[in-house]
């Protein structure tokens, strides 16, 4: 019986992730490659990063970002991540000129992707400075990034998360930390003697094999095989996150299986090194972590993975948000806002708080635990952004079940910053229409717009010429 369950666990361990990754070559200004991952409903393009010189650093960092995003959304069916690389023998830096955001956007549009991610890397004696940029494409700004509140199926208030271009703070880390890590073979793979597809094969490794990467050369990981070094292509492997936050009193098991014997227990909430990873078709992703009391397996859902670059969390959060997985989205945005240095770019951090607030609101209905405080934090970080106030007004309606004076005050603030702010104007316009009487859950009638809010909204209509 034990052998059967071990065999089952062994077979399940090789289940492929449900998302997909693909590589395309693009040539800015020329005919774009055919659409990849046609069946994917939520796609992002990671355009090869710009490196400092003739070395392949830009390529290496972008490939790692690509694979880490795939890990972060490994259980999201219909999700895909495309890496857009320069044609062999060419360098993206020479092709992009000064198009930057626009070139990344062009390739993302041609691939019908909803996000375009790209970046630049500088290397000073092994210390990397990495800039990452993200653009959300227009169709990602549709209703999915709106926050709406209504009663009985009718939307009464809505506000949009408006920022679509993000310049994330510079991330600084050592090249060794980025590339020396455990990697997991995704499908049977040839280990070659050089980082070239035509190099002699040293050995073939099976899916699920754990290898230790000792370096990188472009799109290849250098690995130790027996007494020699060999190379495996990055598109054939899965990348575990370097670390994961594990709460106190969690149990670690001998196998990636919830009924497996317990091998260790955590005694405090701490970030642990991830040493292996498996995707199990019935229970999702599992990490093997190294705790002070011993190493063992834990379901990824019970941890907060920490990826190499905070932007990976932000992008994963958008993936989750777009398909309505609010709990997962809240976890990713929570990880982003807690990342060191996030405050260096207040605009992207404010948006992350807006998305965190919206995710918390949507996952916790009707409770709104922590959502209003996230919107308030977004306002603290970007106090001149009218959309921050409009969003908090909608969140307040969720919180109180009515258009309260607090929400109306936020609309006043939004209009004082931009009298043409569409969301705020529309909500003021709707404010009195929704002033009817409804019955609450306990059958007591109440007005949706309270008296103080009504007075303020009438005043705002007059002040800003709103019908």
């Amino acid at each position: 019986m034990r052998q059967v369950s071990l065999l089952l666990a062994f077979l399940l361990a090789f289940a492929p992730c449900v998302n997909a990754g693909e590589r395309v070559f693009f040539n800015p200004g020329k005919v774009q490659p055919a659409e990849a991952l046609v069946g994917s409903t939520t796609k992002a393009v990671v355009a090869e990063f710009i490196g400092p010189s003739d070395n392949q650093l830009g390529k290496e960092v972008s490939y790692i970002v690509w694979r880490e995003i795939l890990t972060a959304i490994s259980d999201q069916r219909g999700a895909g991540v495309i890496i857009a690389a320069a044609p062999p023998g060419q360098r993206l830096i020479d092709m992009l000129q000064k198009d930057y955001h626009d070139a990344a956007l062009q390739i993302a549009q041609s691939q019908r992707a909803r996000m375009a991610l790209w970046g630049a890397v500088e290397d000073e004696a092994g210390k990397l400075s990495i800039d990452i940029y993200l653009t959300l494409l227009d169709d990602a700004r549709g209703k999915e990034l709106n926050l709406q509140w209504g009663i009985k199926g009718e939307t009464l208030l809505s506000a949009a998360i408006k920022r679509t271009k993000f310049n994330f703070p510079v991330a600084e880390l050592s090249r060794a930390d980025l590339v020396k890590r455990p990697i997991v073979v995704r499908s049977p793979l040839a280990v070659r003697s050089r980082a070239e597809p035509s190099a002699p094969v040293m050995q073939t490794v099976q899916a699920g094999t754990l290898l230790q990467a000792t370096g990188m050369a472009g799109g290849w990981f250098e690995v130790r095989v027996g007494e020699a070094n060999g190379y495996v292509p990055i598109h054939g492997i899965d990348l575990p996150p370097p670390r994961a936050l594990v709460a106190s009193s969690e149990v670690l098991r001998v196998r990636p299986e919830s009924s497996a014997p317990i091998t260790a227990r955590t005694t405090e909430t701490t970030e642990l090194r991830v040493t292996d990873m498996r995707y199990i078709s019935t229970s999702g992703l599992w990490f093997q972590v190294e705790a002070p009391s011993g190493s063992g397996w834990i379901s990824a859902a019970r941890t907060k993975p920490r990826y190499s670059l905070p932007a990976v969390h932000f992008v994963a959060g958008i993936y989750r948000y777009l398909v309505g997985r609010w709990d997962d989205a809240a976890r990713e945005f929570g990880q982003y806002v807690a990342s060191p240095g996030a405050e260096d770019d207040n605009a992207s951090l404010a948006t992350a708080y807006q998305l965190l607030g919206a995710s918390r609101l949507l996952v916790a209905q009707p409770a709104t635990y922590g959502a209003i405080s996230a919107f308030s934090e977004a306002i603290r970080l970007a106090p001149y952004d009218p959309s921050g106030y409009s969003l908090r007004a909608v969140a307040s309606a969720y919180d109180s079940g009515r258009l309260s004076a607090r929400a109306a005050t936020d609309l006043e603030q939004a209009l004082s910053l931009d009298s043409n702010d569409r969301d705020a104007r529309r909500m003021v316009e709707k404010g009195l229409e929704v002033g009817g009487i409804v019955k609450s859950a306990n059958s007591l009638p109440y007005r949706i717009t309270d008296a103080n809010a009504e007075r303020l909204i009438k005043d705002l209509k007059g002040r800003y010429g709103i019908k």
Partner: protein
Amino acid sequence: MRTKLKRLLWFTLLGVFALGSQAQTIELTVMADNARVPGVSVTVQYKGPLREAGETDSQGQLSLDLQGKLGQRVAERDAVTLSFRKLGFDPVNRLFTVGTSSALAVPMTSRSAVASQLTQADQTALEPLRNLGANGPLLLLPYELNGIAEPDQVNRRLRASLERRIVTYVQSVAGARTAELGVRLVVVAGSRDVSQMQAYGRYSNVLAVIGGEAKPPRGGKMQIESKYLIIPKLQEFEAPVAYVDEFVTEGEINSAALHRQLKRAWGRLTVLALAIRDINAAPAAPGSERKAALVKVRQYLGAERSSGGPNSDEYLKEIEELLTYLDREIR
């Protein structure tokens, strides 16, 4: 024994406190045309509201106790925004990294200062920039990096990094209108004081001039002072001269260290410079064409303001000033 230990602990704590206090007080000296400038009003901001810091005395000096003025300690390597204003002088904003130096010399430029005539060699060097189009470029004068290995290479990498960071910032705020916006590195022989940098900028018809220098090391740290000057002028608006002060360990000077703080600061100022240039370029005659041009400027300035953070009131005041000016015309 216990008493001795207590005393030792007290002395240690006092030492740490004294060291901390020293780093949190900045001795400011404001200079212009080799003379000290009294009566300059100074404001300071750090993670909270803008605070009046006082005026420079008859010796052009002001001792600024940051903790006392701000009501909080400034974290090591965090930057405060210092602003200097006096009638008849170009306003100055400085982003100053706290914790390594307690003295700061602040050059201001008198409105009546006259730049020396550009030499023929400098004119020839700047000539290619003169007709490069409406949106740019920005002129980068090589940083003066005395005593640093391979300064030319550092400057070349700095140019590429600044260009990418400025262009992507502008693209993220003002949309895709950056085809001609780039950073050109030009070597000039003349001085790098503000009035001379303005002369280079006016001659070459650029959007802004960027320059900087490494100051002699103190306590193992080198001060890197960077300057950004907006060249287009608007009668109704005074663009400030912006400085960023960074402290870098000797031997760690590289392009990444140089532009750590510059990323957002320079991008934002470039948006401001573009707005001034676009307002100047709008049809002069009142009417729908002028209004349409100004509405466009208002849109991207509004987007820029909305990305302003809790520590950027001084800069946002300038954006606000331009928005008020535009609103008066548009309505």
